[in-house]
């Protein structure tokens, strides 16, 4: 590429580069510096070295919130991927017109504001009068107190998270439509059962999409905030009853920063989360070399 073309390329890229430097790289560096300070916005900033990091290792709420977040992620990501794949496979088999309709139906909840989802969760999952337990009651199941029993809050949130899996469904649908038909025909001629065709043809051929959604959903689960905060911590009244089972990591980080004005400590919390996400993502990438098939390989 000529130097002129290179300059032109950088010219077109520059808005993004400038935006990245100002709105992402800049705040990241700032938060790294802040994580080494005692900073509350209102008074002078004191350098405290690694004290914030030492504190977070001893903070029981860090352990609680991290455990909640990881448990949620472990439950949410496989469930989302499995249900989304099931729905996408049904859509592939549906007629052209009905597929378009259902595609829209599945995607619509994704554009519902997460705040509304949080409120909806409280209404639907109320243990005494909620619709979910009402329906469970029809088949003789005595539903739990999803919104107030610490043991059931995370499972309830996981079930509720299935509300917004539209994006993953669309990605899988696109991947499934790209699987060459002749592979299925060849497998069928060889006598492969539907399960064998799914395992030996479908899964390998869409493994790239599966891997992509695994990474994206894992990162997004580890950063869960909006809907849980709305449901359990969004108002002064809700904060009063803040259940430890709903204390997710980013919620605790937010509380430390803006409720208790411990910006330095909150910055350290952010960097710990960053580190955890980097490690998990690297592990996933490493594992993907064994399981993900790219047609170009």
């Amino acid at each position, binding site marked *: 590429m000529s130097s002129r073309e290179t300059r032109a390329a950088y010219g077109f890229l520059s808005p993004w580069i400038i935006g990245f430097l100002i709105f992402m790289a800049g*705040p990241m560096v700032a938060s790294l510096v*802040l994580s080494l300070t005692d900073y509350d916005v209102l008074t002078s900033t004191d350098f405290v070295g690694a004290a914030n990091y030492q504190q977070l290792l001893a903070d029981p709420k860090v352990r609680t919130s991290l455990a909640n977040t990881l448990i949620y992620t472990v439950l949410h990501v496989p469930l989302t991927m499995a249900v989304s794949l099931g729905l996408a496979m049904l859509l592939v088999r549906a007629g052209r017109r009905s597929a378009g309709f259902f595609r829209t139906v599945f995607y619509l909840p994704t554009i519902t504001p997460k705040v509304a989802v949080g409120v909806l969760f409280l209404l639907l999952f109320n*243990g*005494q009068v909620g619709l979910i337990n009402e329906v469970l009651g029809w088949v003789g199941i005595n539903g739990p107190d999803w919104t*107030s029993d610490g043991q059931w809050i995370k499972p309830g949130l996981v079930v509720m998270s299935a509300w917004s899996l539209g994006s993953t469904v669309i990605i899988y649908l696109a991947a499934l439509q790209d699987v060459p038909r002749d592979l299925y025909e060849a497998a069928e001629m060889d006598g492969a059962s539907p399960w064998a065709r799914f395992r030996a043809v479908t899964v390998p051929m869409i493994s790239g999409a599966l891997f992509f959604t695994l990474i994206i959903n894992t*990162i997004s689960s580890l950063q869960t905030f909006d809907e849980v905060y709305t449901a359990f911590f969004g108002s002064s009244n809700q904060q009063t*009853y803040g259940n*430890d089972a709903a204390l997710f990591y*980013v919620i605790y980080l937010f509380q430390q920063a*803006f409720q208790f004005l411990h910006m330095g400590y909150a910055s350290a919390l952010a960097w710990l989360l960053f580190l955890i996400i980097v490690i998990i993502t690297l592990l996933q990438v490493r594992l993907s070399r064994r399981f993900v098939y790219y047609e170009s390989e």
Partner: protein
Amino acid sequence: MFIRTSRILVAALLLAGCGGVGGSDSDSDENATVTLTMMGFGTGDDIAKTRFDAANAAIAPSAAKASEGSFNAQQFLSAVASKTPPDLVYMERRLLGTYAAKKALVPMKDCVDQEKIDLSQFRPAAVAEATLNGQLYGLPEFYNNRVLMINNTAFADAGLDPASFSTADWPTLKANTAKLFKSKGNKLQRIGFDPKIPEFLPLWARANGAALVSDDGKTAKLTDPKVVEALTFTVGLVNAQGGWAKFKSFRDSFDFFGAKNQFASNQLGAFPMEDFYLNVLAGNSPDVKLTVAPFQGRDGQPVDWITGNAWAIPAGSQHPKQACKWIKTMTDSPTWIAAAKARAATRQKEGKPFSGVFTGNTKADEVIFRDVVKPSGNAGFDTGVKTILTTQEAGVAEPAIAAGEEFKAVWQDAVNRVLEGKQQPAQALAQAQQQAQTVLDQANRGS
């Protein structure tokens, strides 16, 4: 991945460019025409709008611009960090200590002297709640009293007399709660008595002759045996009514601000509650059969834990003198009286009773409840207002605390752990005591 976390963490820096509250349009000359900026106050009802207009008239041709929405710490911090604090800030009085300790608010002494504000017109407990280390940091308004609200219909069902119901004798209270409570299978049908914990633990502690924090707000007293006893008793009340999970789920289902509220639907026997709820009931279910009684300590004396809001002037305000003049008018008795008249007129048009407004201003209260509030015809509301007026004379506030928000979170977490069955009261409060004292010591360092 880092977009969200970095956005949260450095919002104060980023929002500096877009989250400010607007600059001034003049200099700080007392007589210049300016637009005062504020945070935390909206003009959504008669009481707010009437007073807002009166305060603006007092500084005309200058004027204040309402912000709408309640106080938002994130917004306020961003404005302070970007050196564009509002001229005025309106927040709950319990929050003042935190911001005052960090010197984000200016003491009111100069304002009081400049405008010759008569502090004696305010109820002492309200002033005390806005005072940290001997310095007043806000002009108080509203006086939220806690009283007992009793559902006569539920009491009749249970064969109990509302007039003799009291919180003074705890074993009797527990027995009456059991009589009022109703459930069918796994479903609750009526909560007999809701102690309203965690949030009302300070009230129960006072009823038992204790407090959660020392009078100077610097020493946590969460392990006081009387606090432990109060928590043990109130958690016992909840556990006797299905346990926390069911109790809370059922309570969350109440149409609290609607016509089918828990009194109208007979879902609650009695609870301690802020006085504003009398107006809610009067507006939404004026036919409800209600008794209001003082919340009594174990010695039989009324205990009234009060809270409210305050107007403060942030450090760095561009127009502190005009701001001072504005909030003087806002909290003055003639302004309150005009606002109460406006609300009464609105209620009259709607055919609903007006049970008054408890202002925190003794002069205003005197006129409002003598001349503006008229008997509604519902004995429950009318005697309720009289009960609150008597009770508020016994009002006490929690002291201003330099880390009020964090202190509250610590003891409320402890109560929640007990409610969820994770810890015993003594164990939870011992853990909270240690955390709370650390928080208080850090916040008071250097103050």
